[in-house]
């Protein structure tokens, strides 16, 4: 296992550890995500992928190790602070606001990026500064023509697209995507791959994903996580031919 630290890395994770009781959910993980690339983390269920994302976004505090974003340690920053610093996260379990419309969801994300919200008087529905930007990002994922729909009434795939639009609306430097294809059908997955390759041209992405087709067609770099450990990090082609990876992971699902 070789870990090449690149000079221009946006995110570097250094010897990160997290235990839950006796289980090593994250076991000495070091990773570096280079600027502008799409870096995918794959691994079997229970490998600690979501735990890793949760530590990067600030939801869970690691036991030891360090996380540097844009050259500075963000270990002490809370979730909100990391988000404002330009690290946007989407969730594995869809967690958009079901009771609101698509546009209201996106506007909330834009609002989060626009400094403080201690504004008590002006109604947001007349706020073109919010709506216009939100619409731009809905356009990117192809939801702009349905912006008035209540989110609970749209399909699962569309909700996942909205997740991505909201992450984009935060105008981040980098996106942390936790299984963006989770629970999607073939066509929806295909659509999401299109969207993400579009997004990936402009932003750095670290994604956790099960869908191998998606990973192989999108990612530049791949890390394989097994039992909390990174067993390999390399280019897609190299990983595919790595015997250790074949044995421990790909052997099962891509035989």
């Amino acid at each position, binding site marked *: 296992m070789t870990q090449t630290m690149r000079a221009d890395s946006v995110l570097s994770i250094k010897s990160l550890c997290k235990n839950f009781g006796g289980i090593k959910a994250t076991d000495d993980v070091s990773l570096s995500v280079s600027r502008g690339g799409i870096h995918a983390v794959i691994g079997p269920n229970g490998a600690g992928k979501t735990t890793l994302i949760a530590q990067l976004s600030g939801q869970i505090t690691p036991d030891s190790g360090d996380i540097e974003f844009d050259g500075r340690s963000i270990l002490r920053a*809370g979730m*909100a602070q990391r988000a404002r610093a330009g690290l946007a996260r989407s*969730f594995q379990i869809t*967690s958009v606001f079901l009771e609101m419309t698509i546009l*209201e969801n996106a506007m909330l994300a834009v609002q989060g990026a626009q400094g403080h*919200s201690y*504004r008590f008087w002006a*109604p947001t529905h007349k706020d073109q500064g919010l709506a216009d930007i939100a619409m731009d990002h809905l356009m990117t994922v192809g939801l702009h023509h349905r912006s008035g729909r209540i989110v609970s009434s749209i399909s699962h795939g569309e909700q996942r697209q909205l997740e991505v639009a909201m992450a984009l609306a935060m105008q981040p430097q980098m996106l942390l995507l936790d299984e963006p294809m989770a629970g999607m059908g073939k066509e929806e997955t295909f659509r999401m791959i299109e969207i993400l390759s579009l997004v990936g041209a402009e932003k750095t992405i670290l994604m956790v994903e099960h869908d191998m087709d998606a990973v192989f067609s999108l990612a530049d770099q791949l890390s394989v996580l097994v039992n909390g450990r990174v067993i390999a990090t390399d280019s897609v082609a190299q990983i595919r031919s790595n015997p250790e990876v074949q044995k421990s992971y790909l052997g099962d699902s891509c035989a």
Partner: protein
Amino acid sequence: MVNLSCTRSGKVYLGMLFLLGIAPLLFQWTNQPFLLDLLSRGLIIGIAALSLNLILGYGGMISLGHVAYLGIGAYCVGIPAYYDVYDGWIHLSLAIVTCALFALITGAVSLRTKGVYFIMITMAFSQMIYFIFLSLEEYGADDGLVIYARSEFPVWMNMESAVSLYYWIFGLLILTLFFIHRLVRSRFGRVIIGSKYNDLRMQSLGFNTYGYRLTCYVISAVICGLAGVLLGNFTSFISPEMMSWTRSGELIFMVIIGGTGSLFGPLFGALSFLFLEEALSLITIYWHLIFGGLLIALVLFGKGGIDAWLRKLDK
């Protein structure tokens, strides 16, 4: 509130507000001072319910100690009056500052918790206040404190007569409704509503929700405290009993009956609650039994409360 007049439910609400506005004239004309009394009390409790709804309905913060602020507001009239300070502006400012401070301190602690823990801790704080006033011998302890005169204001806005006090209450009610209407549609309001549905998600969108929720809690407490000032003036008597946690429970009931997270619902929830209580107690001494049954039925079958019921008119 321009858009209100567009929906049928909105028209009903505006119509009822209009009726509340002219109620004193009707009561005077029909010579029913008792009804004016009942309605005055109803509107004060209604304002308290509206303030609770701001944190409970819109923000998802279920406080079982909200009447503490009603009581603090009332004591902010009673204690100065005990020292012959009757200046209404002093009473009002004192209530605003005291409630804001108490809410800031207790909110800062309680909002670190969620769910049942939040309910318990808000109740604990309000019981603390309750026992503090219960032990203050100087201010009557459990015998309470009589307020011999109402807060003094310039002649054109004094609250000496029952009718002028009613219009003070009505005025605060309209201000509160308008303020909440604007607040929940503002950027601040969107953050509060968002954090009710999914606080984690809001944080991941870059909102430090704790600060927003605390601010909302303080605003709600101040509104409730202002209602307390009017309550002190209305009853001319205050005792710790009005701060007991069971009163907070009643306030929650009123919000639920009216419709959580609706602008007008809690006001009419409070009015229905109080009128029902009054009417049933006229019929039988066992009225608590019927009242309890009715409340259970309302919660079980009346999902969304009065507001949801009225909104059926819009479809």
